[in-house]
């Protein structure tokens, strides 16, 4: 499945190889049964300790696959330390989580469920809750051929569903395909996006999500020790404040921005990134143009 996706991606890449950004494919193949079960799980609070939180709580499609808060709220109203990254198009990310600790969606899916301040359910509890539910045991066994649900089964179903959460037909994608034209400010914004160097990090199908970069590369940003950066994994000094470059797909819908939700508007975010990571100071007009371009990255939001 993943290979098929990669092949599709590389073909797409070849087709639009003259541009560093490529359109989202209209569809990618997935297992319908698994995805349907994954969807059910995605929206079921059964997977949270106090039956209040679902995956969708923090990954609301109407909010661009995020929760529109600077940091997320978990079970018993606990505040997390990270801004909820969008679930939309997450299949195209090279790793998952802000610090890339999960290699793929399956590895990622159980993370928030187990996280004590997110959904707070141990893998054992999660699977025993589903094993106690006749609907889930039935539906799972039809797919897996086994009588009991394992934590990994849960992850597989959710991950399969998340494959379906892609947002094709963004105005910019249509422009890349030659199906529409950008306004002059949008065009200008895209040109600046490239020449300022934004595109060196934000490229590919997800306009980001394919490399790690340091937050505050040129002009440092203060590090919050509660934050899960690459350093928490590698313990290398150079990995402090290093995060996976986030996708800019549907960026207009996913405010507030950055790993800690510290930028409230797109204008704010563009300005901060220009300063801290590019060491430049674009004019307001330039920022506006870039924002106009970023707004063309909003695609069809799944229901």
């Amino acid at each position: 499945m993943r290979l098929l996706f990669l092949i599709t991606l590389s073909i797409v890449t070849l087709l639009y190889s003259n541009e560093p950004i490529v359109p989202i494919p209209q569809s990618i193949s997935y297992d319908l049964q698994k995805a349907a079960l994954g969807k059910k799980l995605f929206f079921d609070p059964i997977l949270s300790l106090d039956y209040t939180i679902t995956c969708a709580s923090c990954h609301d499609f109407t909010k661009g696959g995020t929760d529109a808060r600077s940091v997320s709220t978990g079970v018993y109203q606990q505040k997390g330390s990270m801004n909820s990254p969008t679930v939309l198009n997450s299949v195209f990310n090279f790793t998952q989580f802000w610090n890339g600790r999960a290699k793929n969606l399956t590895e990622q899916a159980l993370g928030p469920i187990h996280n004590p301040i997110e959904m707070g359910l141990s893998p054992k509890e999660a699977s025993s809750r589903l094993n106690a539910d006749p609907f889930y045991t039935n539906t799972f066994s039809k797919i897996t051929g086994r009588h009991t649900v394992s934590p990994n089964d849960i992850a597989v179903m959710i991950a399969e569903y998340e494959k379906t959460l892609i947002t094709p037909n963004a105005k910019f994608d249509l422009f890349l395909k030659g199906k529409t034209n950008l306004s002059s400010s949008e065009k200008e914004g895209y040109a600046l996006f490239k020449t300022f160097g934004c595109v060196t990090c934000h490229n590919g199908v997800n306009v980001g999500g394919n490399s790690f970069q340091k937050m505050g590369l040129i002009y440092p940003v203060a590090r919050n020790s509660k934050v899960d950066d690459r350093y928490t994994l590698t313990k290398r000094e150079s990995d402090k404040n290093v995060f996976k470059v986030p996708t800019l797909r549907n960026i207009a819908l996913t405010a507030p921005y950055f790993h800690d939700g510290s930028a409230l508007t797109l204008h704010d975010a563009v300005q901060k990134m220009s300063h801290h990571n590019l060491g430049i100071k674009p004019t307001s007009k330039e920022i506006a143009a870039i924002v106009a371009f970023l707004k063309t990255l909003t695609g069809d939001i799944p229901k």
Partner: protein
Amino acid sequence: MKLTHKLLLTIILGSSALIALFLFKSFTQTYFNERNNLELNFKEIETAHRQLDNQILNNAFFLYTNQDTVNSAIEQVYQSIDILLNIPYMQKNHPKTYALLLEHRRLFDKKVQTIYDFQTANIVIKNTSAALLVAEQHLFKETKLATSADLAVMDAIHRISGSILLAKNALDHELLRSLDTQIQILSRHRFAPSIDTEKIERMFTHFKIIQEFFPRYVDTLESIQEPVIIATLKKSEKEFLRESDHQLRIVSYFSYLLVFLFIISIGIIALFLVQTEREIRTDSLTRLRNRKAYEEDLKHRRGRVALILININKFKHYNDFYGVKEGDRLLVETANRIEIIPFLGQNPSYYRLGADDFGILFELFQDDDLYTVAKSFLDTFPETPILIDNEPRTPSISVSASELYPLLETADMALKNKARSNPTVYHEALNLHEIIAENVTKAKELKEALQENRVVPYYQPIMNYATESVTKHEVLARVIMKDAQVRSIFPYLRIAKESNLYPELTRTIVTKSFEVIATHSGDFSINLTIDDIENHETVEMLEELLNRYHSIGKRIIFEILESEAIEKYEGIVSFITKMRTYGCRIAIDDFGSGYSNFARILNLAIDIIKIDGSLIRNLDTDDKAITIVQTIVNFTKSSSIETVAEFVHNEAIAHITEQLGIDGAQGFYYYEPLECPLM
């Protein structure tokens, strides 16, 4: 071994070879398929690596790049490695390859982290070098308001920017480091207040960032290209080939086995064929070559080829006497003897050609004499007795030889020839075809004579020495030829026996002679053979005649051959008994020709003994014959048996016979056979 067993063994061996062949084929096919597949997989991993490295360099070189391509190239490498690792027999059949491949994957995990680091550094270097170029343009705008010191610094910054770009493209660590101090000094310079230093400060920041990231950029790029990763892959591939070669060795052993099995089965089949072929040409009893072998060997003989044929005399009697089992033993011993005794011919081959017929096929030198060879064989044969159960049983043999084709037929003719000597060498005179022609003629003549009533009885008078007169006649058959010539029946007798004319011949003579006897006086002796005595109809007719001619029986004497009387003793006793009721008397003909057991003859209570012509004929010259005849006469006298001498052909013999006390005599000296009796 039985034929079925042979066939079974051959089939088993054959099918084993076939199964082996099939297994070999499927094994090699699987082997090479696996090997090719795996090798292809190794190549795919290598290709994926190369594509990844290519993509990375691409990313390092171009400003606008899509990093997805690097990530998918990484994924490609993982996929191709995992395909190999997930092959079930990989871990089982190629454990070392598997271990090395795992090691390779672990190293690649590390490389992937390095690639991520490189990507991070690469972006920084790209963006800062781009930013430097942009900043350069701003720097020149400020020159109008600058002091000369400012200008010098700006110029230095300008040159440093150039050097940095050069160092970046040359991946020159040292060049970049050499700029360190200069940058430090320049960064402390205070520009004239009129100059907007913000851009210059930014530039210094970029310098710093480049200085910070460039070593990482270079290190990671070099580390990515570290050949050790590909080396582990190569090592794994090499190990695979080694392990695979090991398997191939098994394949080749297998093929040796296959060839071995195949050769064995072919060998066995060949052996069976040879054995069977030999068996076909061998006589199972004597192990000599057989008739079929003889026919074939004959075709390959060149030069002066001859055949000696050996027949065991009276083997049938031996068989009857000792039994078939003993008969077989005699045949085996005889065969052995024939094979081992010295033989004068060249390249002899020995055969069993019939029940008791053996053959020696050989070659003669130009001046060899076939008779000598045959004679020498015949003489050598009984030199050492053949012992069976420590009892000498050397059979008497007849030997014939021929070098005229067809060898077997001619030698056989020589052997069967009645007038044969031992050994007989075939010559044209013995030609069977002539004999057969003669036989046919004789048979025809006899048959016609019988039909045309030309076979008649003649009567030879027998002198009685006591009365000095003829008292008896011997009835002899004569054939009147078409030209009225009278011929003895003797040459026709054998033909008559062989062509079933004999009973008719006897009946004709008996019937005709009885008519004559009835009208004449005196005694008449009539010759009967064992065939006549055993012929029911003939005996019936005799009785009918004896009844018809009343009291004729007293004047009838039946002459029976001495040899037949001995051989068919029982049958003759009952005949004699029957004839005596008619008053008939019995004479033994040719007495003294064999080695008769006198006592046995006497038991027959015969009346007359006719002493064999061979004894009488030589009485005037052979003293030994006189002694024998004297002995016969002596014992007949004491048994009141009358004696008659045959073949008295001169006066001297007539005188001797009379002197010896023989009662009667017949022969040309007295009378030849006459058409009518004298009385």
